[in-house]
Structures are given as C-alpha cells and as structure tokens.
C-alpha cells in the first residue's frame, strides 16, 4: 500500500481521497469476509459450547469474580440443558492434606457397586457409557493384568479361582499424564489429586496415551443424564457435567473429600475393602495400613509412584 500523501492538515486532494476511500472500502470488505471465514468454526462450535465457555481463561488464571461468573454460567447451562437445579463450587485443597487410598484385594469380591456409585456421584454420561473404575477379574495366584477380564458376567461373585482388582486413577506423585498435556489443562493439586480444567482441555488424548493405568476417559458425546439422576453437588474440577470432546478422570471425589467426606466408591463398598484418608496425618487409617500392611502399587516399574495402594489381608 502506498504511503499516504497530502494528508497533513487542510482539505484532501479529491482524486486521492476517492482512491484511498476505495482502497479502504475494498480492504474492509475483504477483512470482513475473511473474518467471517475465520469465525465460521467458532459459530459451529457455538452449537455445543457457548462462546463464553470457548473463550474462557485457564482455571489457574481466573480472578475470583470471573470464576464466580463462570460457576453461575455453568449452573445456568445445566439448568437449561438438563432441567436440574445444581450448585457448582470451586473447592480448594485443604492445608496439610495429601490423600491416599488403599484397597484390600482379599476383601473385594467384584460386585461393581463402586463403579455404579462413581457414575452416579460424578455425573458420568450414561450413553455412551463412561466409568472411571474398572474392576478386573484376575486368575488367582497371578498378578498379570494381561490375563484379566473386565467384562466378567457371572450370576454370583466372587467366582471360583478368581480375585478382583479395581483400577481407577492412581493419583500418581510422578504423573505422566500432566507432563504430556500440550496446553497444561491437567495438573496435580497440592493435596495430590490430579485434576483437569475441562474447559481448557482440547481433547487431544495425549494424557490417555501416557497413562499406564488407562485411568482417563474420553468424552465422545454431550452427556446424557436424566434430571432426577443428576447429582446437584458439583465441583468445577470434579463432577460437573463435562463438555463434549474432553478427557475426564477420577478426582477422588474432590467435592466430597476436600470437605472431609469419604469418596463415593468407598462409602458404598459392601465388603469394606476400601480405605481412604490423609497420608500426612500420622493417626489416619491410611497411615496405619502403610505402616502395618504389605502394600504394593500397580506397575511400579513405570516410576509413577501412585497414591493408590493395594494389599492382601484377610
């Protein structure tokens, strides 16, 4: 574009004025057309996600006011799309708390109550099915997960010659999933829970590939949950209804556990196989197990240092 001439003070040369006017007009039209082209995917994304949600800042960089606006917006979205009145909160980690989980494999009988409770508590989509916990049926005398069966369908459990190994997010101290995330949408909180900002996640699924425990789930469709089954107690980082196309995971029910409660899977376990608590508290039950039982972790050679411990003890 030519440098503008004769524009300093006074009236413009009419021809020059006309030419520059035309240039500016054409330029503007072209710019608007290209803008329409650029914003086309933005408009199509608007059908599933509001533009406010699409342009939302990373969770860690939100001011309290902005965060509050976002929580209210999510509540409105749930009310509009699912017809349920819910409360979405931002629940921060407690000081001096690092969560640990222990599971007694001798007690677990593979009844899958934990799976069902997790689905209900964390508002997982019913279709397509999503479950954070997998209960593997293992041949007795073996620790080889390659020989396990996820789809066992007996009339009664435990089946003869089998034991059961529930696997969920191990909340690693050295998590591979957070390192591979290209947009830093997932990170580990001070209390040891690895979380995802579901609005910042781009759904690339690198974390799923990196996790040695297959603990992360991809959300293929907008969640389908009947309004009477929606758990109204929601946390921004845990069990709010996730947008389509993001990766989800177990968060140790942080909306419950950060308020001192037990996680849902532990509350319903009919055999009492699960123990949960604060590892930094020397008198906690989880510490009693770590001191007195022979615990082991899954895939120790992966170097992930899980905060989820298994042990055999009748």
């Amino acid at each position, binding site marked *: 574009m030519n440098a503008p001439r004769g524009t300093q003070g006074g009236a413009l040369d009419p021809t020059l004025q006309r030419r*520059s006017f035309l240039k*500016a007009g054409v*330029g*503007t039209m072209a*710019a608007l057309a290209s*803008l329409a082209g650029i*914003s086309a995917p933005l408009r199509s994304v*608007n059908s599933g996600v*509001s533009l*406010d*949600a699409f342009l939302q800042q990373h969770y860690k960089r939100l001011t309290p006011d902005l965060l509050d606006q976002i929580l209210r*917006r999510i509540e*409105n979205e749930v*009310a509009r799309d699912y*017809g*349920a*009145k819910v409360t979405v909160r931002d629940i921060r980690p407690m000081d001096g708390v690092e969560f640990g989980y222990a599971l*007694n494999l001798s007690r677990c009988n593979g*009844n*899958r*109550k934990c*799976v*069902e*409770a997790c689905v*209900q508590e964390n508002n997982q989509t019913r279709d*397509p*099915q*999503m*479950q954070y916990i*997998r209960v593997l049926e293992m041949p007795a005398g073996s620790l080889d997960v390659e020989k396990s*069966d*996820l*789809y066992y*369908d*007996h*009339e*009664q*459990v435990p089946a003869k010659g089998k034991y059961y190994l529930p696997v969920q997010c191990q909340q690693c101290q050295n998590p591979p999933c957070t390192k591979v995330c290209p947009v830093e949408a997932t990170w580990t909180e001070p209390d040891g829970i690895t979380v995802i900002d579901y609005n910042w996640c781009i759904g690339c699924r690198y974390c799923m590939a990196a996790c040695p425990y*297959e603990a992360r*789930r*991809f959300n293929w469709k907008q969640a389908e949950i009947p*309004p*009477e089954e*929606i758990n*109204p107690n929601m946390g921004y980082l845990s069990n709010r209804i996730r947008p389509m196309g993001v990766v989800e995971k177990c968060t140790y029910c942080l909306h419950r556990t950060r308020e*001192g*409660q037990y996680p*849902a899977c532990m*509350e*319903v376990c*009919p*055999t*009492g196989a699960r*123990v*949960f*608590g*604060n590892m930094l508290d020397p008198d906690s*039950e989880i510490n*009693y*197990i770590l001191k007195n039982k022979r615990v082991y972790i899954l895939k120790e050679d992966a170097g992930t240092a899980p905060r989820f411990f298994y042990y055999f003890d009748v």
Partner: protein
Amino acid sequence: MIESRLSQLLTLGLGISIVLSSCSPYAEPVDAASLYVREVEGAVFDTTPIRGEFVPLHYKKAGFTYRCTECHFSIQPPPRQNPLQSEHANITLDHGLNTNCLSCHHPRNRDVYVDHDGNEIPADQPARLCSKCHGPTYRDWEAGIHGRQNGHWDTSKGGRSKLFCVQCHDPHSPKFKTMTPLPPPKRSRFSNGRDSGPDSAP
C-alpha cells in the same frame, strides 16, 4: 492513515461479531420453577449395610422380645446341641470349628455373651466377643481399616459411622455370601470383542 483506519474497522468488526455471537441463550437464567431439584444428602447412592435389619424372632408376634431368658429361664439345653431346634431351626451354623453354642452364648444368662473366663460380655458389644478368636481382625477393626466406615475421614468436619461385626457378618455363618454383581461395561464398538475399555465410542 489508511492502515490505521483499516485496523480500526477490523477491530470494530471483530467486536461486533463477538458481541453478536456471545448473545447465546446459555447466559440467560432459566425459569427456576421448571427445574428438577434433588436433595444432596443421602440421595445419591445406597450405603445401607450388607445385612441390614435383623429378622425378628417368630415368637415376637406373641409378645416376646429379644430377651433370650424369656425362654431360657427354664429351658436348659445341653452344652453341645446339634441339630438346632425350635426358634433356632432356621440358623445355619457354619462358623468353622466353632460349633458349640456356649462358646459365645453365656450358659446361664442368655441375654449376654460369654468371655474366656466365664464373665459376661454385654449384648451391645459383639466386637469384644469376636475378638476372643479374631484378634488381628479386631485390631484392624479398631484401627478403622476392617469393615466399612461412612461419613467423614476428617472428624472435625463431621461424624463417622462405623459398622459392627454383625452388621456385615452373620455370626452363625460369618463368611460373606456371594453377591450378584452389577452388569459389566458395554464393549467398545471398535474392540472387536477384545478388551479395550468401557468408554465405547458412539
């Protein structure tokens, strides 16, 4: 000059387009009366103990209570009684080597249990009775790692309920019964029958 005007126009256009497209229905509040409201506490999942309520005695209908001495003030069964009769006919005694009723039940006062030394153990402390033989399990139960606990791990934030032995185990047949499991996850469409995880793609 033209460049600056152009950039102004561009900014204006972008601003207009953002304003237009952000007028989505998501931001508007929804009519509260039409919404489903669900209670948070206790509504989400079932946490009842595995045994639940005890089956009442047959004779309770005739005005009897749970006090065993109502019958046993006069009936003195032999120390080793097999098979069980009368009110106890529906009991399945399958407690390992422990087939003697009076190992647990006090021989003279049937309303209580009996300790090793013949002393009474109150009926509301069954864990003390079980600890006679199951020491390590009792120790774990006391430490809170045997049996289910409900409520709060942080007791400063709320209460915690702890189940007694007999709320999960039938004392006459303490081994856990088999359970009907909940249905398995649906197989992925792309798994070709193999195990590839429950998150089935649509």
